[in-house]
């Protein structure tokens, strides 16, 4: 059993889960995920890692409450235990000195892009972070990014913070600041990662996305997390979850992600992620 250190409601529908898992904390890297079960009958859901404390043996994820399983996680309190917290899984984001790196986070991905930005900064890159949400009240960790970035930009759809618009405003935003990216890394809902990959194609900015398919075991056994990358079938749990966003068959991926949407909310009998139609109302919070 794994002890919950804290569950914080960071912004509406978005929760920060801190779990005592020393073995995971020892090995975790940016871009990894963990497999979590909220209770003994629970499904195995993947959550991207957003931070950790190796000395304290704790690991942090930020997840969006969208279905029955994430609702169970959101109801946990400090001191509770959960039966499964396995990881770190996935290959982790490739970190090295690229030059100028743009880290883009949205949704739960504002959390999981944080350790990427930190590691990219430590590796000697010039790091610019862009966080995006529908409105300012949905942005979180706004101060945390300042220490690990050479610049932090915000984009909101209603213009209540930063630039008004959505991720398609990114090229214009960067150009206005005179920033020429060598690498773009995006963590967020599927729709956002797809949009960023579309807009970075014509300027030819290499774009890494942290994919978030349905998973079961997460250890390279079941094959449900497969996606087409450059015409080849890849398995996100062991080949990724980071892939070149310009090579992904996004239509296929979006369809696969939605395949259990009705079942995810069935136990809840209420809607979760209506305003995030882009991510397919996908359970798993990532």
């Amino acid at each position: 059993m794994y002890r919950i250190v804290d569950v914080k409601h960071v912004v509406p529908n978005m929760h920060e889960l801190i779990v005592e898992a020393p073995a995971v904390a020892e090995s975790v890297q940016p871009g990894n995920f963990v497999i979590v079960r909220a209770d003994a009958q629970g499904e195995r859901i993947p959550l991207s890692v957003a931070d950790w404390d190796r000395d304290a043996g704790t690991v942090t994820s930020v997840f969006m409450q969208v279905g029955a399983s994430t609702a169970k996680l959101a109801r946990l309190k400090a001191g509770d235990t959960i039966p499964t917290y396995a990881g770190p899984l996935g290959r982790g984001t490739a970190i090295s000195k690229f030059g100028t790196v743009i880290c883009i986070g949205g949704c739960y991905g504002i959390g999981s892009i944080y350790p990427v930005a930190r590691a990219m900064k430590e590796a000697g890159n010039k790091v610019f972070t862009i966080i995006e949400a529908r409105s300012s009240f949905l942005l979180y960790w706004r101060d945390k990014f300042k220490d690990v970035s050479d610049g932090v930009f915000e984009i909101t759809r209603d213009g209540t913070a930063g630039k008004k618009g959505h991720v398609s405003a990114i090229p214009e935003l960067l150009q206005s600041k005179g920033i020429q990216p060598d690498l773009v890394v995006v963590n967020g809902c599927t729709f956002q990662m797809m949009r960023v990959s579309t807009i970075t194609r014509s300027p030819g900015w290499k774009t890494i996305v942290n994919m978030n398919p349905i998973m079961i075991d997460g250890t390279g056994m079941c094959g449900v997390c497969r996606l087409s990358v450059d015409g080849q079938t890849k398995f996100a749990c062991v080949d990724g979850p980071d892939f070149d966003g310009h090579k992904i068959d996004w239509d296929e991926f979006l369809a696969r992600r939605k395949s259990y949407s009705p079942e995810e909310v069935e136990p809840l009998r209420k809607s979760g992620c209506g305003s995030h139609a882009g991510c397919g109302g996908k359970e798993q919070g990532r």
Partner: protein
Amino acid sequence: MADGAKTLKLKRNPMPKQDEHERRRNFDEVALGYTTETAIDEASRCLNCRTAFCKAGCPVNIDIPGFISCIVKGDFASGIRKIKATNALPAVCGRVCPQEEQCEKQCVLGRKGDPVSIGRLERFLADWEAANSAIQRPTLAANTGKKVAVVGAGPAGITVANDLKILGHDVTIFEALHESGGVLTYGIPEFRLPKAIVRREVEYIKSLGVNVVPDYIVGKTRTVDRILQEFDAMFIGAGAGLPWFMGIPGENLNGVYSANEYLTRVNLMKGFLFPFYSTPIKRPARVAVVGGGNVAMDSARTSLRLGADESHIFYRRSRNELPARIEEVENAEEEGVIFDLLVLPTRLIGDSTGWVREMECLRMELGEPDASGRRKPIPVEGSDFRMPVDAVVVAIGNSPNPLIPMSTQGLDIGKKGNINVDEATGRTSRHNIWAGGDVVTGAATVISAMGAGRIAAASMHKYLMGEAAPEQRPV
């Protein structure tokens, strides 16, 4: 009847089974097991041959005539002890071993009539032991102070842990999933191997003092080398890896599953109890399973139990070449699985929302035997046809689990991603690491994994006790 055959009982006792119309809609065990009377009668068929060919046919060399003669005498406690001397999982093996290819194939009675039902008798003793709370723990050798790490709590790992614990070593199993048992838990369905039995066997090795750590993914949570800083030797029984697909268009459509996914949702995650268990499973009406092995049979029979109107097996050769156990083929036929033999799927066709709706196939005919010794299927020109489907389960095998090969230096890895070992000892290219089961052979049987575990455990024991000097240093 010829004179000499008068005393021979040529017919075996049939296995009592749940009625086929009932069982195709429930997950309860199909084979009900012999009664005491039937077991004694079946045991009395054994000729007690001077040379026990049956024993030689068993990958773990069970004293088969020995345990059978105990049943004849009604001394079941001694019988199960004889089995457990070399087999840690008799209740499992009695159910899922392909005895017809192993011990029973060698049975002398089989030349004139039916071989003795060795597997059913093994199961009888194991079930008798559990039902009578007669489980006897073996005496453990004095503690050697040596620490062994076992990766994977499947059939291979459990066997190694059992053997090395009895020999006095301190054994820890690291299991990636939240439940132990490996393929016995996530793969083989409840109706063929009740999970209560798997749990019972895992509890047994825990009761011997084996430490089992769940949710621990060796190669990710900690690397092999990090673990070996704290252990004297390691056995890798990490099992099956990524499923194979056919490589035809449409395999990433919704409604197309690997058998690993389909069976894991049901068996490990209990999807058939959704929403009480929160992992969902679809309940499509028309299911096509591609493949002809036991996993394909399990998938097709599972789909009936989930409420399918029609469940089809698509196999490119004929019934004779089906790799599945004949018993499982018959069970599937009795339950109403439709066998579309000599058919090769060539394309999956989806609707506008990305769900599979049709399967395009070619009819085949058999030509000359190929490298595998089986007659090669050859497409019949112009025979293509389409059939409507709501789900396709691809059950054509899998590669070994990639996590350890990917993350460990100095391990000799084969072309298919398998870990190469010395067959006689199970030792890898690293001096203190052994491996066995599917991670070495690719998808194979429970008993062959156990056999590999047994061989590795013996070699590891020698190494740990210093009888064999290390042949090389760690890389």
